[in-house]
């Protein structure tokens, strides 16, 4: 079958004169309506521009489930570093359990968290083996629930420092800057 130019085909197979007259318009308004695409394309371009402007290529690290991070204004961008989350009384390192804070909360005294210390120390040794000759950055990011008492934060901070991570960053929810 030869390829023909597209044209009106609606109801053409019906061998009735009045049907074909209806289908082709028959002197009245045509049933084939053209759709203006200009406004649609304008809309699509605006959406693409907006999404491109808000696009983040660095990716995002979501906070642990059920953890409420405080908000802050004078912040810096996230970095790729081991993530220590303190959610309630549970401590997680990159999603894996690394002890709890029961003993610290009960005694209300600063103390080292041995399980966390061993995991962080292990991560440090792995990093050194993978990057021989390079200086270890010693950065760890703490995701801490907003209502956790300072003694727990201090204990985690101190444990991280003892394990070779003296540069600690606190993960916060970024607030738009008000300007100075």
């Amino acid at each position, binding site marked *: 079958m030869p390829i023909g130019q597209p044209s009106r085909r609606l109801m053409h197979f019906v061998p009735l004169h009045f049907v074909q007259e209806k289908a082709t318009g028959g002197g009245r308004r045509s049933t084939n309506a053209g759709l203006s695409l200009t406004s649609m394309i304008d809309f699509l371009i605006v959406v693409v521009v907006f999404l*491109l402007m808000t696009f983040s290529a660095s990716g995002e690290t979501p906070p642990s489930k059920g953890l409420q991070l405080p908000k802050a204004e004078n912040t810096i961008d996230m970095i790729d570093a081991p993530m220590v989350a303190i959610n309630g009384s549970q401590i997680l390192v990159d999603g894996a359990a690394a002890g709890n804070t029961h003993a610290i909360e009960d005694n209300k005294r600063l103390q080292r968290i041995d399980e966390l210390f061993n995991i962080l120390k292990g991560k440090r040794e792995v990093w050194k083996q993978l990057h021989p000759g390079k200086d270890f950055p010693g950065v760890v990011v703490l995701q*801490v*629930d*907003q209502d956790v008492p300072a003694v727990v934060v201090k204990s985690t901070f101190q444990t991280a*420092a003892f394990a070779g991570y003296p540069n600690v960053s606190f993960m916060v929810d*970024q607030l738009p800057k008000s300007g100075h």
Partner: protein
Amino acid sequence: MAGVDVGGGGKGKRRTLDSEINMIPFIDLLMVTISFLLITAVWSHMSRINADAQVPGPPRPDVEQEKVPPEKILHVEMRTPEKFTLVWKQGAQVVNSIEVPRKDDLKEDKGKKLVRYPDLAAKIADEWKNTGSHRDASDRKLDQAVLHTDNDTAYVYIIGVIDAIYGTHRPLTLPSGKTEDVPAFNVTFAVN
């Protein structure tokens, strides 16, 4: 349909100039781009606040230690719910000490808390202008601030104070010659 007319009709018996650009691939491309950007879009913006533990490095017996005079350090103490104490110390010597009334400006939005200390931030900025050691734009070193808290303070208040300390900014000339605004202090979180 789905085309754009790019000219009027031809003259005489010559080939007509009335042609259409097919817009369907263009619309398809826009749709795919929108889908990709929507799927990869990030609507919550997490960031971080830096603090260090000021742990001394390993001893280097092969390197001769230079004797440098200790720098002035701003100690911010939040040990009581009524006031902050700002103490400038040079080594063990207290250079200056002032008290700032503590007013917790606590706001809560969908369970997320925000604590601000505008009075403390303003006082720290004043203190830095008067006593800070590294105020020149060409000076790449930052002044040091140490935060001391009691054991019962909730984490959100600690973040509020660190945020207030980082609120003081100064210009810094980069090696490229450009000048950018950076925090005037580097914050250390004291665990004692």
